[in-house]
C-alpha cells in the first residue's frame, strides 16, 4: 500500500488538505481539514476565536504522481474521494463535535472496549510524524543551500586533478548526485547503517525546534502559525503557475496530466493507490480531525463544512497538479531537446555535414540519406531513443519528485535561486502544517489517557514529545536513513490507517448506532443527514475499505519485499537497483504496521479480562466504618 511517499515505483498523486473558515466563529479547518475552534477555555465566552487553519496542498511533497499517467489517477482519486473521503470526513467531524473529546475519549465514550481505536490512531500519528519531519529537515537543507548562484545541484563537482567531473556525477546527473551523495550520502543497503551525517542532523534539529515553537502551547500557538503556513503555499503555487505556464513545453505536461489512460483504470493497484491517497489527503483516521473538531461549538454545521472542505480539497488538488505538471512538461521538453541535439550531433560528426543541415524536422530523412550513402559508417553510429512520453512519466518515487525532478527543472529556469527559495519555503509550510495535525493526534490522546500528571504544563509535555521523537528520528540521519524512511512510509501509514478507518466507521454505524448518530447530527445542525450519507455510511464506504484492504493483502502476500538502492557499482547505474529486504526487516514491518492494528482488538480483550476480574470481586462485603462529624473540615470530637 502506498504511503505518502510511495516507493513502489509510483509517482505520487496530489495530496490536498484544504480548509475553510466560516464566519460564526468556529469552523476552522485544520491543515488536515480538521475543524478547529477555540473552546471557551481558550478565553472567549461569547463567540469564539477563530483560528484559521486552512489546509493546504501537500502536493509533490507528500503526494505522489501516478507514474501511469496522472489522467488515469485522477479519476479513481475523485471517485473514491466522493465515496470514501467525504463520508468519513463528515463522520469524524460529527463525532468530535458531539462528544467533545479527543480521539481516545470519543471512542471510549462510544464503548469502553473501543478505546483501542483511539490508541491505534495515536500510534499511527506518532509513526507518521516521526519520519515526516525528516522530510522537512531535507527541505530545510535544500532551502539553506538555495541562497547561492549557481545552485549547488546545477553542476557536478570536479574530480581530484580537475580534469573532469566526479565519476558518479558524470554517469548520473548533477541533481541525482547532489541528492544521493551530498545530501543523503546514501549507502548501498539498509544493512549498512554508516554514521550520523552531521549536516542532516543540524537540519533535523532545526526542523524539530520550529515544530516545537509552533506547537508549544497547543492550539494557541498552532492557530497563529497556521496563518502563515496555510496561506503562503497558495501564493507560491500561484506564482509557480504563472511561471510554469510561460515555460516552453508546459502544455505537453498539462495535456499528459489530463489524458486518461484507459488501461490503467482497469488495474486494481491504481484504485488501491487512489484510495490510500484519499486518506492522506484528508488526514482521516489520524485522530487529529476528531480532536480539532471537538473545539467547535456544538451547533456548528459540520455537514456543510465537510462538503466545503472536500470541494476545496478537490479543486486544490487539480490546481496543484496543473502547476506541477506544467513544470514537468517543461523539464521533459528540455530533456527531449537535449536528447535530440545529441543525436543530431552524432549524425553530423559521423558524416561531417555542415551545421544547420540537420534539424529536428528533417532528422529522419537525413538519417535515411546517410544510411543510403554509407551504410557501414552509419551502422557504427549510436543514437539514443528520445521519447517524450518516457520523459513525462519518468520514474519519480516520492521524495524524488520534489528533490530531483523539480530541482532539475528549477536549474533550467532563469533566476533559479529565487524559484528554489520559493519552492522550498512552500514545501516547508506544507510539511509543517501536516505536522501540526500529527502532533495534535499524539498530544491530546496522551492527555486523555491520563498517563501524564495533570499539573504538568503543556509546554513541558510538547517538549518531551518533540524531544523523544527527535531522538528516535536520528535513525534517519544515518547513511541508510532514506531506506528506513521509505520503509516506514510504505507500511506505517497505509495498513493501520485503513484498519482504523474501517473500525471507526463500523463502530459509529453499528456499535454507537446509526439512528442515535442521526439524532445527534439532527440535534447539532438541525436536520437529519440525507440519503447520501445514510447509504455511504452504512454500506458503501465500509465495503469499499474492506475491498481495498483485501486487495492489498492479496497483492502484498504474493510479492516479495524489494526496495530501490542507489548503487554506483550497479551495471545499469543511473537506474536504482532493486534489492530484497533482509529478513529482520520483516520483523520491523510487523511491528510498525501490526502494533497499531493489534491495539484495537488488544485493548478490547484487555478490557474484557479486567471486567471479568472486577465482576468476580464485585461482590465484596460491606466495609464497616465509623462516621465522624466534621464541620468545614475540622473534625469535631
Amino acid at each position, binding site marked *: 500500500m502506498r504511503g505518502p511517499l510511495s516507493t513502489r515505483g509510483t509517482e505520487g498523486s496530489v495530496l490536498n488538505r484544504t480548509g475553510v473558515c466560516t464566519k460564526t466563529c468556529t469552523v476552522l479547518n485544520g491543515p488536515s481539514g480538521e475543524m478547529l475552534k477555540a473552546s471557551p477555555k481558550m478565553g472567549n465566552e461569547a463567540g469564539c476565536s477563530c483560528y484559521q487553519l486552512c489546509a493546504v496542498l501537500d502536493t509533490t511533497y507528500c503526494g505522489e504522481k501516478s507514474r501511469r499517467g496522472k489522467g488515469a489517477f485522477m479519476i479513481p482519486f475523485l471517485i473514491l474521494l466522493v465515496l470514501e473521503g467525504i463520508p468519513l470526513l463528515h463522520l469524524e467531524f460529527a463525532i468530535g463535535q458531539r462528544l467533545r473529546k479527543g480521539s481516545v475519549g470519543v471512542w471510549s465514550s462510544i464503548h469502553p472496549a473501543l478505546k483501542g481505536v483511539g490508541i491505534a490512531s495515536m500510534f499511527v500519528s506518532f509513526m507518521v510524524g516521526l519520519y515526516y519531519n525528516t522530510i522537512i529537515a531535507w527541505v530545510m*537543507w535544500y532551502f539553506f543551500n538555495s*541562497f547561492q548562484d549557481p545552485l549547488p545541484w546545477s553542476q557536478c563537482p570536479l574530480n581530484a586533478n580537475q*580534469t573532469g*567531473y566526479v565519476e558518479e556525477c558524470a554517469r548520473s546527473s548533477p541533481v541525482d548526485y547532489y541528492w544521493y551523495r551530498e545530501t543523503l550520502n546514501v549507502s548501498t543497503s539498509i544493512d549498512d547503517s554508516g554514521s550520523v551525517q552531521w549536516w542532516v542532523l543540524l537540519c533535523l534539529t532545526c526542523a524539530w*525546534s520550529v515544530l516545537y515553537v509552533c506547537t*508549544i502551547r497547543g492550539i494557541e500557538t498552532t492557530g497563529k502559525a497556521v496563518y502563515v503556513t496555510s496561506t503562503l503555499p497558495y501564493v507560491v503555487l500561484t506564482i509557480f503557475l504563472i511561471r510554469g505556464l510561460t515555460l516552453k513545453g508546459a502544455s505537453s505536461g498539462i495535456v499528459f496530466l489530463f489524458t486518461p489512460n484507459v488501461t490503467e483504470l482497469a488495474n486494481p493497484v491504481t484504485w488501491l493507490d487512489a484510495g490510500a491517497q484519499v486518506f492522506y489527503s484528508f488526514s482521516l483516521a489520524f485522530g487529529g480531525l476528531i480532536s480539532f473538531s471537538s473545539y467547535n461549538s456544538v451547533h456548528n454545521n459540520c455537514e456543510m463544512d465537510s462538503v466545503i472542505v472536500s470541494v476545496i480539497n478537490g479543486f486544490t488538488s487539480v490546481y496543484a497538479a496543473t502547476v506541477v505538471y506544467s513544470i514537468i512538461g517543461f523539464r521533459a521538453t528540455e530533456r527531449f531537446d537535449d536528447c535530440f*541535439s545529441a543525436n543530431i550531433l552524432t549524425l*553530423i560528426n559521423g558524416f561531417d555535414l555542415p551545421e544547420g543541415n540537420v534539424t529536428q524536422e528533417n532528422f529522419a530523412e537525413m538519417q535515411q540519406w546517410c544510411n543510403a550513402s554509407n551504410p557501414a559508417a552509419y551502422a557504427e553510429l549510436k543514437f539514443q531513443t528520445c521519447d517524450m512520453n518516457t520523459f513525462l512519466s519518468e520514474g519519480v518515487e516520492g521524495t524524488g519528485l520534489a528533490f530531483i525532478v523539480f530541482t532539475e527543472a528549477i536549474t533550467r529556469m532563469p533566476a533559479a535561486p529565487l524559484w528554489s527559495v520559493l519552492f522550498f519555503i512552500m514545501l516547508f509550510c506544507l510539511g509543517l502544517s501536516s505536522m501540526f495535525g500529527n502532533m495534535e493526534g499524539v498530544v491530546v490522546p496522551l492527555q486523555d489517557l491520563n498517563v501524564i500528571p495533570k499539573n504538568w*504544563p503543556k509546554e513541558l509535555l510538547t517538549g518531551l514529545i518533540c524531544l523523544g521523537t527527535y531522538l528516535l528520528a536520528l535513525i534517519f540521519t544515518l547513511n541508510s536513513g532514506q531506506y528506513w524512511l521509505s520503509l516506514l512510509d510504505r507500511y506505517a501509514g497505509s495498513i493501520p490507517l485503513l484498519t482504523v478507518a474501517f473500525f471507526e466507521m463500523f463502530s459509529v454505524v453499528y456499535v454507537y448506532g446509526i439512528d442515535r448518530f442521526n439524532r445527534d447530527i439532527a440535534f447539532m445542525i438541525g436536520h437529519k443527514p440525507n440519503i447520501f450519507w445514510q447509504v455511504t455510511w452504512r454500506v458503501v464506504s465500509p465495503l469499499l475499505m474492506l475491498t481495498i484492504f483485501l486487495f492489498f493483502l492479496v497483492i502484498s502476500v504474493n510479492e516479495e519485499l524489494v526496495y530501490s538502492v542507489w548503487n554506483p557499482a550497479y551495471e545499469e547505474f543511473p537506474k536504482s537497483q532493486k534489492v530484497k529486504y533482509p529478513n529482520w526487516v520483516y520483523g520491523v514491518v510487523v511491528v510498525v504496521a501490526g502494533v497499531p492494528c493489534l491495539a484495537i482488538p488488544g485493548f478490547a480483550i484487555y478490557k474484557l479480562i479486567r471486567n471479568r476480574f472486577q465482576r468476580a470481586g464485585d461482590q465484596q462485603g460491606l466495609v464497616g466504618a465509623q462516621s465522624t462529624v466534621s464541620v468545614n473540615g475540622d473534625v469535631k470530637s
Partner: protein
Amino acid sequence: MVSSLYCMRKMRERCRQTDRHTPTPVWPQLEPSGPIFTPCLFTLPSVLLLFQYTWDTNEEYLFKAMVAFSMRRVPNREATEISHVLLCNVTQRVSFWFVVTDPSRNHTLPAVEVQSAIRMNRNRINNAFFLNDQTLEFLRIPATLAPPTDPSVPVWIIIFGVMFCIIIVATMLLILSGIRQHRRKNKGPSEMEDTEDKWENTVKIENGIPCDPLDMKGGHVNDAFVTEDERLTPL
C-alpha cells in the same frame, strides 16, 4: 617517430534559446604543403556551438597565428612563424587537422610540446574566436575546468545559524511568558482563597452558625443549570 596530429574541431551548438543562425557552409582550400601527414584516430566529441561569423581563410590565418603565438612562448621555439603551421582536411563541419613544423620544415614538432603550449594559452585562443572550452575542442587536449569558487564559510551554515538563533529566541520568549502566566494564575486563586477564608471566618464569627460558604471561585459553569440533554444523548 610517428607524430600524432591533433585535430581541432569546431562544433556548433544548437542554440537553446532563440535565434538560430544558419551559418553558411565553408569550403576552405587544402594546403598540404610540407611532409606527409599521418592521420590520427580520434573520437568525436559531442558538443556543438553557434558560429557568429563565417569560417574563411582569414579565420584560418588567425588560427595559425594563435598556434604560432602559443609555440613562440615555449622557451626553445621563439622562431616559430605562421607559415610553419599547416592545416589540412578542413571539412564543412569546420574541423581540420593541423601540424606545426620546425623552421627547417623537415619534420613536425612532437605532440607533447604542441599540446602543452596550446594548453597554456587555451584561454587566449578561445577568446580570439569568441568560443569557450566546450565549443572549441582540441582532441586529446583535456580541458582545464575552472574550479567552483568555495567561500570560506559555506553559505548554508550562515542561513542555518540565523534561523536557529531566531528559533531559540522565540522559544525562550514563549516559555518565559508561559511561566509568567502560570504564576499569575497560581497567585490569583490563592488570593481568592485568602479572601474566602476571611469571609468564612467573618461568617462564622458573625453568625455563630457554621454554614457552607458560597463557592467563590468564579468562572465556573453552574452544573445545576446545564440540562442533561446538553451533555449526553440518552441511550
